[in-house]
């Protein structure tokens, strides 16, 4: 029996055991209480709500609502119970419940907003998100968290929050490239309602496809993620969107020098069908360039729509669609070579999600069918010389079985990634390629409570990728909770067969072509994480997490003297290691956090790779060693004041020894008439020098005014880069020309909500 077959047999056996256990007579005598928790005002799913059943003798059974607002309490003996649902910011929901043997009760709960103060720390543990609340690499972010980060718009954006996280490296305030704990942008899996979004970050770094107005929550796994997520080796950004208001029509419009946006949501059928639509359009060419006094030759826009249907009390269906567009050039306007290469990309994603809690089983099932597409092009003006397309149909079935002391997650997935690209360049061989493959697999990931506050979540994924055959990815996550002390750890094996190629040597070159890995086994990573979190005082939380990522079979651009896109790849290995230290403080009148991240990433050319220059171990250009993020937010007299300071140590770059000329002597070349090419002679060991450090202070002040007829007007003023730090974005090594990030920018924004 082969290894995958053996692993499959073991895990199917475990699954069978769980199902049998659920079906045993003793288990059948007990009842199940489950349902969906939503907000009373809007009908939105509410994650993290603690739902408990208390019998007259003091016995308690309970569960916490998941990201869908779903809770399930299994193994409830017959009797009369007090049902209690509590969550921070909401009035406690109380009800009396009579449970008979074998009951399968569906109790949906609508939580009314309440005035429970933050200082009532009894509910503090309910909080799912927070800057220091990290569990084995996972940090959850809610819309309210995002809005604390100063941003150019009244409405925030998920990327603003990401940029405050230690271990998350942005190359600058433009480019749309995010590196997480040493991983490359194309090694991050980004999901929106289960749909792949391949290049979600806009060309101007303050924006992504995820404006606050659509975000219900985002789970960000900086590493160590479970087996439900496959196909990427670095990290996961799993965004769940709001369903839209099921009770009343609501809309907003906002404008700032950078963007204008609009939101419309409301019920099509009250309490049953809601729609949500958000659109955003950049005003960079029209407004911001003049306003900032700096060229911002970018355009981006995005539109998101969602319809959510409550089919029955135990079934929900949603259809989501996203389209984004970015274009522009990152090359300096004063470029010596007068290059006018433009980059453009479009994301399109459409998905259907069906959620069901079957009447007779302790199960929650989810079916996702989605289609994702990325179209990219690069080249001079309107004549792209390179194009790359990627599209995938994704079908996933995710199931969760609930037992008294465990929760078993399992599922199947089937994907059909199809890529095509046409690449050429000044010295590039003509290359047109297309690939179509299929990827199918199964995963099993039970979470078992072993007592003493210890939860273990071993997982195994078995999958087949077209070129690779069967592979196994074992992973484990665990947490140990002892009062105010929380330990967590994760480890696992990760593989990626669909890889993104881009020229990391040049920060202005962000064109990415997706191709299948040229090797059967794909890129592989091994993660290990260990974290500790403590709440020494009410409202104060401190966490420390160390990480290690080992990456094999990476593909990087061959080291050539021409800073141009190259499909000539070198195979490399790498490792990233570091730690994050976070401190978060919450008081009724203040919220703030400070974090420090240390990360060291090293690449090494694989000895088997046909490298002509072996630099040994070297720092890749995204290896930012030190990061500090500080955020403080307070309210006074109705004003909200948000301050954010960030610091990043310099990124590595390669120095230049000199310039000469190159003539390709591949035959009887007549050197009298051949022009030759100007050539830069780089230092033999790349990335040995370090660019200046980066730091910036952003401040916003906002206030919401209530106008008649239920209209709220929010005004914002503020500054980006308050002390006008000259932060470098890109350095052209050919000409020593530097492109800097945004200077001091005063901000004015207005948002009207009805």
């Amino acid at each position, binding site marked *: 029996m082969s290894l995958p077959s053996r692993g499959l047999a073991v895990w199917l056996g475990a699954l069978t055991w769980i199902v049998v256990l659920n079906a045993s007579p003793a288990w059948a005598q007990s009842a199940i209480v489950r349902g969906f928790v939503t907000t009373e005002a809007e009908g939105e799913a509410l994650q993290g709500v603690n739902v408990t059943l208390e019998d007259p003798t003091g016995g308690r059974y309970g569960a916490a609502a998941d990201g869908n607002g779903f809770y399930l309490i299994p193994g409830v003996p017959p009797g009369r119970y007090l049902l209690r649902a509590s969550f921070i910011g909401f009035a406690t929901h109380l009800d009396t419940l009579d449970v008979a043997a074998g009951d399968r009760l569906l109790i949906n709960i609508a939580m009314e907003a309440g005035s429970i103060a933050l200082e009532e720390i009894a509910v503090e543990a309910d909080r799912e998100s927070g800057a220091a609340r990290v569990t084995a690499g996972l940090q959850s972010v809610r819309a309210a968290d995002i809005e604390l980060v100063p941003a150019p718009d009244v409405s925030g954006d998920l990327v603003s929050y990401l940029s405050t996280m230690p271990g998350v490296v942005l190359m600058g305030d433009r480019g749309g490239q995010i590196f997480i704990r040493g991983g490359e942008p194309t090694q991050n899996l980004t999901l929106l309602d289960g749909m792949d979004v391949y290049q979600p970050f806009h060309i101007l770094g303050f924006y992504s496809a995820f404006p606050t107005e659509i975000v219900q929550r985002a789970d960000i796994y900086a590493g160590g993620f479970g087996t439900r997520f496959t196909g990427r080796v670095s990290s996961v950004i799993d965004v769940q969107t709001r369903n839209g208001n099921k009770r009343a029509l609501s809309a907003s419009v906002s404008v700032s020098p950078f963007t204008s946006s609009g939101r419309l949501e409301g019920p099509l059928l009250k309490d049953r069908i809601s729609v949500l639509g958000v659109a955003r359009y950049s005003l960079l060419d029209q407004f911001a360039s003049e306003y900032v006094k700096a060229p911002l030759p970018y355009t981006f826009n995005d539109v998101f729509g969602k319809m959510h249907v409550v089919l029955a009390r135990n079934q929900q269906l949603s259809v989501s669609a996203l389209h984004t567009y970015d274009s522009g050039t990152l090359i300096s306007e004063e470029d010596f070579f007068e290059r006018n290469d433009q980059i453009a990309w479009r994301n399109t994603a459409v998905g259907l999600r069906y959620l069901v809690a079957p009447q007779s089983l302790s199960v929650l099932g989810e079916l996702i069918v989605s289609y994702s597409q990325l179209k990219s092009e690069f080249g001079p003006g309107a004549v792209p010389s390179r194009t790359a397309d990627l599209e995938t149909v994704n079908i996933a079935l995710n199931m969760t079985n609930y037992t008294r002391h465990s929760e078993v997650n399992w599922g199947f997935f089937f994907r059909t990634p199809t890529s095509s690209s046409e690449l050429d360049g*000044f010295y590039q*061989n003509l290359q047109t390629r297309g690939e179509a493959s299929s990827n199918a697999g199964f995963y099993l990931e039970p979470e078992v409570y072993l007592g003493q506050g210890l939860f273990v979540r071993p997982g195994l994924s078995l999958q087949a990728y077209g070129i690779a055959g069967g592979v196994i990815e074992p992973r484990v996550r665990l947490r140990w909770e002892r009062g105010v002390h929380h330990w967590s750890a994760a480890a696992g094996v990760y593989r990626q067969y669909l890889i993104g190629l881009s020229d990391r040597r040049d920060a202005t070159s962000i064109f990415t072509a997706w191709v299948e890995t040229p090797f059967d086994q794909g890129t592989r990573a091994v993660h290990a994480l260990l974290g500790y979190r403590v709440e020494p005082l009410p409202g104060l939380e401190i966490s420390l997490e160390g990480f290690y990522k080992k990456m094999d079979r990476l593909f990087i651009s061959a080291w050539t003297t021409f800073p141009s896109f190259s499909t000539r790849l070198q195979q490399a290995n790498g490792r990233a290691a570091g730690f994050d230290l976070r401190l978060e403080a919450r008081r009724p009148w203040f919220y703030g956090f400070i974090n420090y991240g240390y990360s060291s990433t090293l690449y090494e050319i694989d000895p088997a790779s046909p490298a002509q220059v072996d630099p040994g171990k070297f720092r890749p250009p995204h290896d930012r060693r030190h990061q500090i993020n500080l955020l403080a937010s307070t309210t006074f007299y109705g004003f909200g004041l948000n301050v954010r300071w960030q610091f990043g140590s310099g990124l590595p770059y390669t*120095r230049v020894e000199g310039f000469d000329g190159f003539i*390709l*002597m591949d035959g*009887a*070349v007549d050197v009298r008439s051949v022009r030759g090419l100007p050539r830069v002679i780089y230092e033999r060991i790349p990335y040995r020098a370090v660019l200046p450090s980066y730091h910036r*202070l952003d*401040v916003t002040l906002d206030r919401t005014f209530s106008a008649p007829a239920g209209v709220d007007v929010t005004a914002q003023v503020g500054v980006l880069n308050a002390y006008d730090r000259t932060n470098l974005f890109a350095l052209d090594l050919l000409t020593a020309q530097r492109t800097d990030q945004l200077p001091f920018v005063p901000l004015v924004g207005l948002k009207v909500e009805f």
Partner: protein
Amino acid sequence: MRWGKQARPVLGLVVLLGVLAAASGCEESVDPIIGTELPFTLWGFMNTGADTQFVRVFPIRDQLIPEQGGGIDARVFSTDLTTGDQREWTYEAVQFDSLIEGHLFWAPFRAEHEHRYRLEVVRSDDATSRVTVTVPAVVDFQIEVTQGSTIIPVRIIGDVPHLVGLRVTYHAVNIPPQLAWPPGTSIAGAVQYPVTILYENVVEKVDDGWVTEIDMVRDFIAVREVYRLNCLITDDRGSAPDVWLRQMEFSALAADSSWAPPGGSFEPNIISVPGTFSNVENGYGFFGAGQGIRYEWSPDQTVSLLAGYNFEPRCQGLFPRPEPECMEPPVPCINESIRDLWRIWLR
């Protein structure tokens, strides 16, 4: 009191802002040029078929843009190590554009087979780049162009360490349609556009030299693709009827033993890295030696037709023809980057 409590965090933030503003705001400069002591980069070869030898010399500078008309601080000397004959080469400036100023040195002599030469480029401070090459033995070649066959055997006979620059150039021309519909549709004139096919990967070393076979049918696929990319044909179906072959040219260089790129391939992205394909001491670049081989011929009409070419213009007659080239005659879009793509690799 209420004011004080609410103002406290604000005051704290103001102090924080002040500290941060005082601590920073300056610009840090970056100097990415570290310089090198290597003086020159050389390109060229000792050509046994020429009565004058040439070498291009690039000074290694610390700035990309050269000073215009500045000349070069260099003198070039050659020594025939077999005979002891020494000579200084003559300088000649060739201005290509603002980025490339050609520093050409030449000397009027014929490189002798199996002689060993040393070339030295000396700066006024005596910094010197030098290279030593051995000219290979004399070679002969045979190209068997026969009627009725699209396969043309080639044999290079002699002690040739390396055969480089092996290529076949197809001097083709597109044949625009005679008519196009609707009436009045403009038709661009014929364009002669040579396409070069590299044969480095299909040559084989044998006991007495090297052999290869020119495959006109296979090469026609590449010719057609280049014509399609340059919008010289409309139809890219199996037999493009709008391309005709006028002439063919075979060329190669029987090169010395140092003319061996890493990995056996003249991949520009690899060998452009300074030092990866270089035989120059105390400098960069490559200076080799070799005997040029070149043969031109006009292929037989029958063979051209067999290979896939066709000279009969279509779209004739009084009535519209449904073929693409009749409804949308080609409008040339010669792409300079494709023009530079003289290396088409068949894969």
